[in-house]
């Protein structure tokens, strides 16, 4: 009723003066009117206080898994690449599947840190640090597989264009070499971007430490940062340039990864849709991994006011969008396989979805990547953290299946039926993959232990008080409407409700 009455008053001004148009406030990026020092204390406190007991219970098994992976690699290098399952005709098995899976996960971090920065999506400030860390760790996991699948690891330096006694140079026309450049550039630039973003926060940690080794270590990496505006003005430009450079870079990396397949003549790989399809899939899978990591982190470390339901809502929407693009790509691939009139192409897809040995993997992929994220059309699902986590798990699994389907089902049924064979991963391969999860989680937990998981300086910059022209009385005007509150997530920090309370703006 209040809505209707106000709507009427828009047409018929009150006697005591013209009515002002209603203003719907944006949802605040940081809830409960937190102050600058609250942000510092909360985020730096994660590093300074003892970790919750669960930290050790996760980090130790993860370290053991990573250690076992190191054993698997030793076994591989000392015995030969035959301890893995790939064979003719399936020469790429779990190794390249895992490589594409991990490198894809990294893409969400760069999307959040670079593309959302350029598009002025200020909500990214709560997510970007953790997402960039995730990018770096995922690319580290990814890099292991191509380095080791070459078989003779001690020859891996042949990938680098350095003068050698044979006077033979790399084949720069090969997408595999493009991949070497793309992935190594991606890793280097991601580390640079991450480090530059960390400098002001390392200074915060330095300034809070008592003199000692910790202070010296943080001080060394903080580079003597003093937050002077004569520094910030260069810093901000450098950050923006790195964002601008990372944006085409991240799109290029998975494009080049898809070239590994698309430039071949293997039916099922030789398609022009691969680059956009791979990029969308990478962002899709990466966002699912960011949510998988951050939903527990925000709960365990009490970051609900910084990493709010709005963030989860936004990211769920991106998962829905990119998942739908991926679904479109799946269907378009099928359509073109038929429409192109290429018998081999059409047959490759018939083997893939109708009567091949791996059809189950295709349907797993399709359900996880296309059907499951459709839940995010409903706000109730985006607000229910349990559902969000379940969908993200489906997406994580689905994106792995996607790469498995593309690589293994295609190779297992190539041109000549006489060459067809099945592919089974060996135990070494399986434990290597499990080991990368151990390594990934271990690195992420160590990151949580030593570095601020949320960009402190950046999130202070999006608080309303950070604007020199901020006027608190603005929100108290009677024409200001508070944004709708999110449901779910009742356990807010220090017992405060999740609803946004803006003084004076509750009733209109």
């Amino acid at each position, binding site marked *: 009723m209040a809505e209707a009455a106000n709507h009427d008053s828009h047409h018929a001004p009150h006697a005591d003066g013209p009515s002002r148009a209603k203003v719907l406030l944006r949802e605040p990026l940081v809830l409960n009117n937190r102050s600058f020092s609250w942000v510092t204390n909360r985020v730096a406190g994660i590093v300074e206080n003892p970790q919750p007991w669960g930290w050790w219970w996760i980090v130790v098994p993860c370290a053991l898994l990573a250690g076992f992976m190191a054993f698997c690699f030793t076994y591989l290098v000392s015995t030969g690449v035959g301890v893995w399952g790939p064979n003719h005709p399936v020469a790429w098995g779990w190794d390249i599947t895992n490589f594409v899976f991990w490198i894809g996960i990294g893409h969400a971090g760069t999307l959040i840190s670079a593309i959302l920065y350029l598009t002025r999506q200020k909500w990214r400030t709560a997510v970007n640090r953790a997402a960039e860390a995730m990018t770096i760790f995922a690319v580290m996991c990814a890099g292991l597989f191509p380095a080791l699948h070459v078989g003779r690891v001690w020859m891996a330096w042949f990938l680098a264009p350095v003068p050698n006694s044979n006077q033979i140079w790399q084949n720069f*026309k090969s997408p595999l070499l493009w991949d070497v450049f793309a992935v190594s*550039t991606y890793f280097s630039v991601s580390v640079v971007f991450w480090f530059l973003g960390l400098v002001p926060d390392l200074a915060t940690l330095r300034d*809070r430490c008592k003199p000692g080794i910790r202070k010296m270590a943080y001080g060394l990496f903080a580079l003597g940062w003093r937050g002077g*505006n004569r520094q910030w*003005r260069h*810093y901000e430009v450098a950050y923006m340039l790195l964002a601008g450079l990372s944006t085409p870079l991240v799109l290029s990396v998975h494009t080049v990864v898809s070239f590994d397949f698309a430039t071949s003549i293997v039916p099922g790989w030789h398609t022009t849709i691969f680059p956009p399809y791979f990029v969308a899939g990478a962002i899709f899978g990466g966002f699912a991994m960011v949510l998988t990591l951050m939903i527990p982190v925000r709960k365990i470390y009490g970051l609900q006011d910084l990493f709010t339901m709005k963030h989860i809502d936004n990211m769920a929407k991106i998962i829905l969008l990119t998942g739908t693009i991926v679904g479109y790509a799946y269907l378009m691939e099928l359509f073109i396989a038929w429409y192109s009139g290429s018998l081999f192409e059409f047959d490759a897809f018939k083997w893939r979805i109708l009567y091949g040995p791996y059809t189950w993997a295709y349907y797993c992929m399709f359900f996880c990547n296309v059907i499951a994220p459709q839940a995010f059309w409903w706000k109730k699902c985006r607000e229910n953290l349990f559902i969000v986590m379940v969908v993200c798990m489906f997406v994580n699994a689905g994106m792995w299946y996607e790469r498995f389907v593309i690589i293994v089902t295609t190779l297992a049924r190539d041109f000549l039926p006489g060459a067809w064979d099945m592919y089974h991963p060996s135990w070494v391969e399986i434990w290597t993959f499990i080991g990368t999860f151990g390594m990934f989680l271990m690195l992420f937990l160590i990151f949580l232990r030593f570095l601020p998981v949320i960009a402190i300086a950046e999130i202070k910059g999006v608080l309303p008080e950070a604007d*020199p022209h901020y006027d608190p009385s603005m929100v108290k005007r009677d024409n200001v409407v508070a944004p709708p509150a999110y449901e779910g997530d009742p356990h807010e920090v220090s017992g405060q409700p999740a609803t946004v309370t803006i003084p004076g703006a509750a009733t209109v």
Partner: protein
Amino acid sequence: MSNPLKRVHGYLAEFSSVKEVFHAAEKVRHAGFSSWDVHTPFPIHGMDDAMGLPRSILPRFVFVGGALGLTTAFLLEFLTQVVIYPTVVQAKPANIFTIPAFFPVMFELTILFSAFTALFTCLVMMKLPRLHHPLFNSQRFGRFSDDKFFICIEARDPKFSTEKTKSFLSGLGADSVELVEDEL
């Protein structure tokens, strides 16, 4: 063996809100100081204008870095593939028409060189890294990275005066004004 003589670095004024430090910075600028800076926990929108600072020229260096990367990649690929050791694989030519196949690596090295140029040039322009700075002698200054805002007018500024600058900064609404010294 510490030297009893100390060198005055400047006056450090502390403010507790963005608004205060912003308007104070405008006044410092109008007073005609040149060796001074505003230390804040995060970049403040519009502070460059308030301080009268021009746009950073960093992008020009990054452009040069990127161009260098592009050239490096092109020469690396063209010289090794076409000139030194013409490699014919997959029936693809080894001549000027090979260049399109070189684009991905040219792109990647452009990005790589630009990013490293951005990082290192930015550090040089920020005069970092450095292990020590006189401002770190101030106990109060440690909160610049938390929730306090500082303006420091350095003694090397020609308009600096031991008494006048202090009263000037106090008049801007600073919570405290402190003399920062450094050991010789």
